Structures are given as C-alpha cells and as structure tokens.
C-alpha cells in the first residue's frame, strides 16, 4: 500500500505541473488573440475599397482586357496557397485545414502548393505534393513585404504556360469557439468581369485613370492579392490562437479532473493504512 501511495503522490505532482503549462498557454493565447483579431479587422476597409475600384474598372470599360480576369478553361494547372501554423498544440487547427485541402485537391491532377507556415511545409513535403517554394516556412514572421513577394510570385507564374487557377486555403475565424477551413479563389478575378453594369438611368461617372485604366488595374491586382494574403494570414493567426486557447482550456479541465480523482484515491489509501495500523496496535495490546 505504501508503495502505491508514493506512486500516486508522484503522479499527482506530474499532472499538476502539466496543468501549470497548459494553463499558462491558455492565458497567453487568450491575451494574444485580442490583438490578432484587431489586426485582422483593421485591414478590411483597405481590401473592400481595392475590390470596389477593381470592379469599377472592369465593369465600366466595355473593351477592358487583362490577363488577371481571363478564365482559361483548358488550363488545368492549379496552385494552392495553404496557410497553416508553425506549431502544434492547437487542437484540430492544422489537421482540419489539411483534411480540407486534401478533399479540395483530391480529383485534380496537376496541383502545386505554396505552403505558408512550418506545419504546412512539412505536411506537403511528406505527401510528395509539388511545392512552389519553401521560403515562407514561418507564418509568424510574415510581413507586408513578404506578402508582396508571394503575390508577385503568384502573378508572375499565372497565365501563359503557368497556372490557370490560384486558390487560397486558410482557417476563417467565425467566433471564439468556431474556426472553419476555407478556400477562396485568388486568380482569375472572374467574378469582376462577369458583373454587368447595373443601369439605373443616371449618367455614369467619368473617372480619369492615369496613365490608363488597364495599367492601373494591372498595377493594383498584385497589391490587392498581397492585401488578401496579409489579411488571411492575420485571420489564420487569430484562428490558431483561438483553437489553442480552447484546446488548452480543455486540457486544463482534464488535468483538474485527474487530480481530483487521484487525490480521492490517495486519501482513501492513506485512511485505510492508518486504520490498519490502529487495528494492529489494538490487537497487539489485547494480547
């Protein structure tokens, strides 16, 4: 009995120290989360106005043409930009995204990925999926200028002999408790060119584009994509923190429960051994 009591005591100690770690991680994630959420929200107005301008240019000009809006049906080369985390211990954050991406690319033959984040690079390397570049293995260190490089890389390898479609996969932040993997189309910007100009009887506004609308359009597209990337990275980061917070909360609760059961067992064993000792002493005195 004494031996097992010592083992239980040790176990309680080890669970306690694990709980300390999970608790700390939960608090850190919770405090970082607020900042990350703010950052993700801040870049929304920028994107909205960019998109509005691009749509304006594409719909107002009847003879407008750009390689970024042309849909090439016969080009079956796909590029997937996958934003995942650098570290684990975030519940299903990474694995849910990868499961989702696998579903997406399952029946496409010619897929290349551009992984962002260490886990993403590791996953696609392991699966032997062709990788465009491994340079962006640290999602936490992605700056605006990094996003630009990615965006330029994407625009440069798009069209002609390159990719026909570019998709972006990231984890959308729905609420504190729910983060959903999502895929959005980056290129071609097909939804712009199909949008018919709504005629409301008013004369249309004449806007002066300098040097001309196509040049402005083609100059803005990479910036717009970089903006989307940057925002998606921020949203993904917020999702990662929320997932980590939830996972660590569950782990802390579990540890608490374990400690409770173990202490109950320990106390029972202690009591039993005392009772036994007393019985032995009393039995000895009677003799």
């Amino acid at each position, binding site marked *: 009995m004494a031996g097992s009591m010592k083992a239980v005591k040790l176990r309680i100690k080890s669970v306690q120290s694990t709980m300390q770690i999970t608790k700390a991680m939960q608090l850190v994630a919770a405090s970082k989360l607020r900042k990350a959420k703010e950052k993700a929200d801040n870049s929304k107005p920028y994107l909205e106005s960019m998109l509005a301008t691009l749509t304006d240019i594409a719909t107002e000009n009847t003879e407008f043409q750009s390689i970024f809006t042309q849909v090439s049906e016969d080009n079956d080369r796909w590029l997937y930009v996958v934003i995942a985390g650098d570290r684990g211990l975030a519940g299903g954050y990474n694995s849910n995204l990868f499961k989702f991406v696998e579903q997406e690319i399952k029946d496409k033959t010619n897929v290349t990925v551009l992984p962002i984040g260490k886990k993403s690079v590791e996953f696609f390397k392991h699966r032997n999926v062709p990788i465009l570049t491994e340079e962006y293995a640290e999602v936490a260190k992605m700056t605006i200028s990094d996003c630009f490089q990615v965006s330029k890389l994407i625009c440069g390898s798009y069209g002609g002999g390159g990719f026909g479609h570019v998709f972006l996969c990231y984890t959308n932040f729905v609420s504190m408790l729910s983060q959903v993997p999502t895929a959005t189309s980056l290129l071609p910007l097909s939804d712009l060119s199909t949008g018919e100009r709504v005629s409301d009887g008013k004369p249309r*506004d004449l*806007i002066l584009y300098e040097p001309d609308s196509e040049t402005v359009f083609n100059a803005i597209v990479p910036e717009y994509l970089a903006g989307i990337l940057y925002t998606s990275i921020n949203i993904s980061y917020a999702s990662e923190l929320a997932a980590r917070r939830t996972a660590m909360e569950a782990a802390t609760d579990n540890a608490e429960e374990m400690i409770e059961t173990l202490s109950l067992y320990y106390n029972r064993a202690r009591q039993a051994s005392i009772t036994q000792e007393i019985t032995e002493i009393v039995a000895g005195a009677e003799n």
Partner: protein
Amino acid sequence: MPNFHLQVVSMDGLDFDGEVEKILLRTIDGDVEILARHTDYCTAIGMGTARVTMADGTERKAACIGGMLSVMKGEVKVFPTTWEWSEDIDIARAKAAKARAEERLKDQMLDKEARVRAEAKLYRALVRIGSSDHGQDHQ
C-alpha cells in the same frame, strides 16, 4: 486656399482622416498633386515621399509605398500598402535594411530575381530614410 477631406487607409487601418489643403505623392506615372475640387480620378501609387499640407498650412511628410489613389466627388482617399508618417519612421531599422540590401547587391553571382528583390528593398529603405524628419527626399 479651399480645403478638402482626405482619408488615408492602409493595411494597418485608418492612418489619417481630416481636412487638408493639398497632397503630393508619387504615382506609377510620376508626381501628382491633388488640390480641392479635383475631377474624379484614379491611379496606382508608386514609391516615394508623400507631402500633405494640413488645413492650417503645416506640412507633414510620410513614406508612401504602393496602393491606390482615388478622388470621388471631392472625397480624396489614399489606399497605400504602407504609410508611415515621418515621425513614426524607425531610421535605424531603415538604415540597417539599406546596408543589408547594398551588401546583397555586391554579390556578382546573384540571380536576376534575387537582384530585383534586393533592389526593391534598397529603394524602399531609401524612401523611408528620405521621408524621415531629417532626410533629404529620395529622387
């Protein structure tokens, strides 16, 4: 001089919102200055120092890189990728970036893509240094 309403919205959020007299910035097609009552206008922004003259006549400088300028019905909106007011610029960091880029460009074996990248970094660093409080405009 009449004033107009200017908003600067970058990827990091709203950087400026208020009445100004004029704004001068570098587009992909050269320097452009916007005054009040400008016609509806749209262009892409290059890299350079932006000068904003406030309603009270004081001038503020900022490093303005990339993005878009739009004038719609008298409302002027600047959507730069990055916008840093001269007093917010971290000179030490910009100088370090400049030194790093120059060091990279010394390498004769550098491939074309890496060279373009390093040149862009150097240019951005120069714009930052030039837009800072004591710097000379980078031309």
